[in-house]
């Protein structure tokens, strides 16, 4: 092949959940393009795009993505899909937070009973979402640092591994959780709260800024993702019969 390939900077959650393993072969079959995915923290992924080291960024932190486009680094942001965050904790659930669907209430209980909580602490999309939730709960978790609130500065998988070994609570995206193999005694305790939704967007890196960006092939990738075929492929990715991501390219507000 005459080097039909693009570099996609994405996040660990999409890679660790196995979504790309599902999508890329289909994309390649359709277009003949190799999408090389580099899975990074959200901040690092955007930075990679900013430097022109990727052709496409595919992340989940809307405000950061909009900044990226506004700064002229990206052409246009397309919403692609969402998944949801879930509160994971020990099956025994010492805080009895699993009874309600209210994530903010659950966080208040954790803080009140100083139950161990693992924060990714890496300014990833998931981490930013977590901070927003603490804010809504009126809690400054930094006060618990080193005690019940452990900020580990690592990816989703590592955070789950830590929670599994430490029997702690942790906020995770459903996709990573479902594909995660080291669940141990952990289980989903809180889910379904609207505030837990997590939107993914895809952006072509601006070829005006970085002339070597493979504009046509990158756009082909984006077009495919938001096409009915791509959206169908996303919806079709399931683990144990459960979908991990929900396509919503047609939702202009996403």
């Amino acid at each position, binding site marked *: 092949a005459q080097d039909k390939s693009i570099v996609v900077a994405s996040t660990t959650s999409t890679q660790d959940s196995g979504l790309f393993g599902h999508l890329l072969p289909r994309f390649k079959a359709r277009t003949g393009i190799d999408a090389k995915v580099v899975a990074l923290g959200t901040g*690092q992924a955007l930075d990679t795009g900013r430097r022109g080291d990727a052709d496409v960024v595919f992340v989940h932190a809307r405000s950061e993505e909009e900044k990226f486009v506004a700064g002229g680094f990206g052409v246009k942001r397309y919403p692609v899909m969402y998944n949801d965050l879930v509160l994971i904790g020990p099956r025994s659930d010492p805080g009895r937070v699993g009874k309600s669907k209210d994530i903010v209430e659950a966080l208040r209980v954790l803080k009140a009973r100083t139950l161990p909580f693992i924060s990714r602490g890496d300014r990833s999309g998931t981490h930013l979402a977590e901070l927003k939730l603490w804010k809504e709960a009126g809690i400054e978790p930094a006060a618990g640092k080193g005690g019940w609130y452990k900020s*580990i*500065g690592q990816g989703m998988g*590592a955070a789950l591994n830590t929670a599994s*070994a*430490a029997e702690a609570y942790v906020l995770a995206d459903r996709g990573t959780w479902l594909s995660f193999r080291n669940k141990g005694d952990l289980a989903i305790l809180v889910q379904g709260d609207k505030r837990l939704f997590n939107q993914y967007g895809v952006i072509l890196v601006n070829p005006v800024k970085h002339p070597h960006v493979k504009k046509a092939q990158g756009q082909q990738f984006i077009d495919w993702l938001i096409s009915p075929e791509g959206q169908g492929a996303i919806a079709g990715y399931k683990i144990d019969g459960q979908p991990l991501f929900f396509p919503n390219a047609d939702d202009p507000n996403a």
Partner: protein
Amino acid sequence: MPENLSALDLVLTGDPALFAIVRLALIVSLSAVLLAALVGVPLGAAIALSSFRGRDAVIVFLNAMMGLPPVVIGLMVYLALSRSGPLGSWGLLFTPQAMVIAQTILVTPIIAALARQTIEDLWLEYRDELTAMEVGPLRRLATLVWDARFSLITALLAGFGRAAAEVGAVIIVGGNIEGFTRTMTTAIALETSKGNLPLAIGLGLVLIAIVLAVNALAWALRRAAERLAG
């Protein structure tokens, strides 16, 4: 680590978080090197001095263990110390002690393999005399370690370099918990994944400066000891 600050700012303002991280990084890697030296040097010396069937295989194995992947060591220690693991009751996972354990496992073969080579080279020179003096195995070992001590420092420094720079194992067993098990290398990894590359590199330079300082100190001690030894 405070946002929007360069590593230089942190150093200049004497940032307490940075100070704690540096302290922990030094304690963990120096403890690991100390423990690894206590095991690795005698082990390397014992292999250098002995001859038995399968000795070559043991040396190959030891040399290969210099290539133990940190992530794998980290995982194994993690599984052992995890609550559901065999040593879970010790409650050591995600503590500095766990990091010392993992790094000790990582560094011991490096020190042992390099010490083996160094001591074997000296043994070639001493073998006849010590054998003729009927020096017993333990004393023989002690003599060679002592007389090779200046060359062995390089082996220890190689081990220290590995421990100080290593991130894969400590992040798994230590968990990179802010204010508790965050060391220089895990902090650098974190800033990298945040996309805060200038701070990451700044911290890297601080780490390199610290490693340099430790090396300079070790060399100064060596030179002083050499002068005393005449």
